[in-house]
């Protein structure tokens, strides 16, 4: 039985034989399952596996990448020849190339607790039971919860193997498990107030309690009953942790090395500048034990490490892979994200907005007139300029209290002004997959409505 790592090594060998200069082979294998229960009945049973290989060749600075899921010797040999041939049509780029050997991870890889052997052993009935417990708790929470889009329990058990022509060859297993539920309550005018909640982790013991996930979704749906539009105003906006995490992901697109070398980020040329308030401290850390985004090496085999991005408001770092680092005269931060079919590209692993020490109730309590944001829709963020304009819903804050639900409004601002106007951060750091944030208050943004 050939291991995934053997296949990756073999692909590199065959590519070299076919005339490749530098090359690396990235193999991703996984078994996945997904079960959905709706209104107490099984709605979906999905189970399958996948194994595919991507080969990147860089010859005299010319790059190509090809992929296949046929892992026979003949197919990999064809893949090697095709990729070497394809690289000939690329332009020669002095910055293209594998990591320096000293940048690569290993030989001893850190143990990051990202593999839970119990997940592969769960039976379908056990998975269905968790989904059922979640949905049942949601539906039982209140008689006004009358419908459900179902609860889904998913698992993924996999391995990543990477080999390159510098002799690097390593693999690591990982697992993930998720539970999600969406329920709704009927409102007037045919509208349904829906809400979802979820838990997305590496291992079963970290997964939130299914009944608690269900109750949270139900409560959030009920919270939106009677939601209305409000008048256009410039006011403080308090981001609940999930929304602060969403804001952080918008900002992450401005911190990537690919946006930087293209000048397609409003942060270009502003290293060392104080942009955010003193409350803005942001880091990326792929080495957090058990972290949803943790991994021992990046998509090019580079050793991962913690990277500070903002320190008390000052921009102090970006996320790089080898190519974008060389283009900008910096060093890789081990941030290469990679899929089998694509070239590496820098992105965050576990992104955190540092918490403060104020209770979230006090953050809301200090607002006389403003918006408490619980939902964002759309992709209205422009990283080049920092212009942000998102569909929004939540609550109106009156005299420090959540007064009534709000929907069909928009929040807008410019990211640099938003960061400078962060005037409170909560003590309630919460993880949503691989992004964590506390409650955050922004002193002023435009809320567009009537």
């Amino acid at each position, binding site marked *: 039985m050939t291991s995934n790592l053997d296949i990756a090594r073999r692909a590199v060998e065959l590519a070299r034989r076919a005339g490749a200069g530098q090359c690396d082979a990235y193999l991703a294998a996984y078994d996945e399952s997904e079960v959905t229960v709706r209104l107490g009945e099984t709605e979906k049973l999905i189970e399958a596996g996948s194994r595919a290989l991507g080969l990147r060749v860089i010859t005299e600075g010319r790059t190509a990448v090809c992929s296949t899921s046929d892992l026979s010797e003949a197919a990999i040999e064809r893949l090697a020849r095709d990729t070497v041939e394809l690289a000939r049509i*690329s332009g020669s780029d002095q910055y293209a190339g594998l990591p320096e050997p000293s940048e690569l991870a290993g030989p001893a890889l850190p143990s990051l607790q990202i593999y839970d052997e119990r997940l592969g052993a769960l039976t*379908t009935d056990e998975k269905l039971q968790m989904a059922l417990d979640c949905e049942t708790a949601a539906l039982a929470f209140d008689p006004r919860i009358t419908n459900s889009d179902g609860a889904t329990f998913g698992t993924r058990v996999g391995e990543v193997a990477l080999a390159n022509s510098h002799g690097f060859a390593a693999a690591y297993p990982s697992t993930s498990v998720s539970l999600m539920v969406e329920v709704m309550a009927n409102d007037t005018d045919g509208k349904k107030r829906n809400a979802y909640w979820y838990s997305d982790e590496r291992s079963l013991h970290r997964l939130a309690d299914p009944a608690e996930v269900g109750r949270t979704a139900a409560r959030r749906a009920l919270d939106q009953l009677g939601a209305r539009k409000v008048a256009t105003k410039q006011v403080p906006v308090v981001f609940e942790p999930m929304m602060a995490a969403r804001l952080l992901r918008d900002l992450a697109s401005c911190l990537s090395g690919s946006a930087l070398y293209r000048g397609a980020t409003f942060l270009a040329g502003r290293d060392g500048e104080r942009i955010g308030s003193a409350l803005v401290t942001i880091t990326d850390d792929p080495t957090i034990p058990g972290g949803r985004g943790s991994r021992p090496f990046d998509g090019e085999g580079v050793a991962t490490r913690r990277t500070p991005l903002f320190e008390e408001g000052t921009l102090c770092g970006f996320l790089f892979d080898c190519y974008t680092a060389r283009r900008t005269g910096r060093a890789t931060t081990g941030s290469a994200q990679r899929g089998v079919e694509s070239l590496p590209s820098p992105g965050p692993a576990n992104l955190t907005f540092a918490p403060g020490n104020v209770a979230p109730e006090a953050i809301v309590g200090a607002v006389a007139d403003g918006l408490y944001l619980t939902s964002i829709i759309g992709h209205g963020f422009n990283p080049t300029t920092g212009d942000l304009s998102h569909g929004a819903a939540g609550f109106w804050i009156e005299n420090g209290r959540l007064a009534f639900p709000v929907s069909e409004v928009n929040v807008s601002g410019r990211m640099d002004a938003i960061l400078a106007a962060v005037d409170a951060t909560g003590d309630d750091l919460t993880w949503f997959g691989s992004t964590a944030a506390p409650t955050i208050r922004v002193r002023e943004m435009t809320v567009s409505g009537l």
Partner: protein
Amino acid sequence: MSNPATTSLALFADQYGVDTAVMSSLLSAALAHGGDFAELFFEHRVETGISWEDQKVKAASRNVAQGVGIRVVRGDAIGYAYTESLEIDAMRRAAETAGRIGRAGERPVPVDATPASVANSCYSAAHPLTGVPAPEKVAILERADRAARAYDPSVARVDCSIADELKHVLVARSDGRVVGDVQPLIRLNVSVLSDHNGSRQTARTGGGGRLGMEYFERVTPEDAARDAARQAVLLQSAVEAPAGTFPVVLAAGDSGILLHEAVGHGLEADFNRKGTSMYSGRTGEPVASPLVTVIDDGTIQGSRGSLNVDDEGNDTRRNVLIEGGTLRAYLQDEISARHYGVTPSGSGRRETFKHYIMPRMTNTLMLPGESHPEDIIRGVEKGIYAVSYSGGQVNISNGDFVFSLTEAYLIEHGRITAPVRNVTLIGNGPDVLSRVSMVGSDYQLSDGRWMCGKDGQSVPVGVGMPTVLVSGITVGGTSVG
């Protein structure tokens, strides 16, 4: 000229030994524990791409994928499995896995798989871009680069790419129907950065469809590149967009995103049979202004959203969703159609063989009306003229939807004046559609650039619109008062 259905049958038979006997046997295995129906979805997909940056080819790529997805349906529940290996043992295991949705003890169903012909012919795979020599594609990118840079001295970066795909599909169903298709798809993307004394703006355009190189004769790389450059340069003089509710004139073409978000998703039958859409139970009711007729048509020649046959083997067709403001029909896949007791509308789609079927849109468009486009703008005292978009999103339960503008202008006293910075519009489906107060006579189909996401599955779609006036929609700007 070869028939795509027979071409596809031949590929899977010759390369993988998948013939009708194998298909019948797998379908029977899938239904061994019963079920209402089952299908096998075979797919062989080749994708090639060339990207261009810094006035040269950045990278070239080629991805080949194949496999089969097997679905068993019992009521509205599904069992699903897939395998990348088209070896008989792997496929049989997948069929058995999918069959677990059935109830043990039910009797197996014998299946006689028989190839059928496909009525539609919306595209030709005779000369797909996947087979065109790289230098011809590189020449297209070179022309785009040159045209963008020549447009204005502030153009500092031109990043572009050509992506193309050729997909052979074969659907084998437990009712015996076997249909195949060969589906080409191409897309040119151009992204331009304008740097004017340190002020940077980017803009993107894209286009293509189920076409070959002939696309570039109709829409030249120079057209695409100049449009991206023009938008990037225009944004340099953009002012802050107003905040609040204003009349918005939507230009013909890509504004069809309005339909996609305001009603399209909400009319997908799965949401409606589950009662989770705000359009549930509303067939026969007014849901839009009487000026509004919305069609979803999977048969438009060469369009990105078109299919000869949908991904569960049903013929695609032209479906009237809203007629003169009245809700007429939902987009029906097989499961939903059985629930409602109607004919499937050819709306069953999946992203790849790894994904299950859901009702999806194809090309969603509004029929033109009577008004002159110039009159529509002239009638607005203060508002927005919206031309290009980056995308949108909808919550089908409460009906709130957004779309984000990348090229838009102020309308002041009936005239188009200053360009505005990127901004998002938000509205509520039925409310916004009831505020459609003028519909122009100038219908346009979008160029092939749109991707639709639902439940983690992306599929290519088209949209089309005439110029339309919406009397009030919320503009998420930053300029108040």
